[in-house]
């Protein structure tokens, strides 16, 4: 009986001593890109602290906006490496949390979830980004509020309407806020405009849409505003 217990204890000890072990320095990273950055890249470094090679079976990101790359599929004992997670910022705002799941043949720890937290700085917060009037409604001005992000200073903004059918007026309301009054010339026809909002001394551009909509619940005959990316003749007023 004693021999059995000894053999069992020995086999367990050997298993633990010989096991593979992939240890990540950090499984959570916080990134702070600048407003101009298009991507945020996180480097999750690891080391095989075990005595057996570790094989990376799969590395998968939680969404299409994030890609994850590994330098190698096999990590020999003692070797270091990293998994690079690239988050495409696109037109996202605020705090974005994405994960990368790493699966290995390490029996003790077959699955590790790496978390990439990206804090996207918001230069301007535009609310609402859409103002509309029902066809035939009185063409009173409607307000759009622009708040400057806490960590930024913006003294002036420039607003351009893609359509001459809409007028805009910018008013600085203090405390890093602006008010944009948008007013259509009339609401008889189904017109639309893309408003381009640009802080001074910045290449970053923000958008809002103004439209005259048709009657409620009727299937819409789409009237697309002139494109926001490359607005054609900005015939409206600028401020």
């Amino acid at each position, binding site marked *: 009986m004693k021999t059995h217990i000894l053999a069992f204890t020995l086999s367990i000890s050997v298993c633990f001593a010989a096991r593979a072990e992939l240890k990540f320095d950090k499984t959570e990273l916080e990134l702070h890109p600048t407003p101009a950055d298009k991507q945020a890249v996180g480097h999750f470094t690891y080391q095989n602290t075990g005595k057996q090679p570790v094989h990376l079976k799969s590395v998968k990101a939680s*969404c299409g906006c994030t890609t994850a790359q590994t330098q190698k599929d096999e990590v020999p004992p003692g070797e270091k490496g990293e998994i690079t997670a690239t988050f495409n910022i696109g037109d996202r705002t605020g705090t974005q949390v994405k994960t990368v799941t790493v699966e290995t043949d390490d029996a003790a720890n077959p699955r590790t979830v790496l978390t990439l937290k990206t804090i996207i700085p918001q230069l301007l917060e535009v609310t*609402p980004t859409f103002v509309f009037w029902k066809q035939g409604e009185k063409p009173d001005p409607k307000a759009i509020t622009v708040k400057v992000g806490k960590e930024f200073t913006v003294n002036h903004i420039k607003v351009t309407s893609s359509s001459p059918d809409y007028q805009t007026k910018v008013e600085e309301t203090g405390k890093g806020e602006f008010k944009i009054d948008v007013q259509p010339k009339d609401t008889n026809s189904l017109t639309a405009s893309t408003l381009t909002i640009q802080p001074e001394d910045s290449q970053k551009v923000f958008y809002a849409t103004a439209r005259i909509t048709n009657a409620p619940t009727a299937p819409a005959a789409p009237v697309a505003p002139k494109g926001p990316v490359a607005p054609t003749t900005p015939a409206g007023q600028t401020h």
Partner: protein
Amino acid sequence: MLALVPGMGEAVYFRHNISWRSAIPPSELATVAQARAWGENVIWVDARPEDEFARDHVPGALSLNEDRWNELLPQFLASWAPGRKIVVYCSSLSCNASREIARRLRKEAQLPDVFVLEGGWEAWLKQNR
């Protein structure tokens, strides 16, 4: 005390499987059946990446994702009219894209009647193909 051990072990082992986000309130969810019952009065919004949208999508759906939000939003708004309901979907229950798009439509564009499709694209496929 001993009886709690397996449960605690399971909680630790599966800790990464638990969503870090809170559930979507039921009032902001729509089932496939509900959305279909709204008929022509609904605008379907596909929040998946564009290559997935290009492969297949709900008939008449508009692509709106955060990769090209600034460019796609005006195109979506051109189809919107007061009284129309908006149903946003992405590729599975676990994805956050539809939730984020719905949140931005409500908060930033201040549109009413924005719903997330329960079960996402897979639920629509199951009931329509």
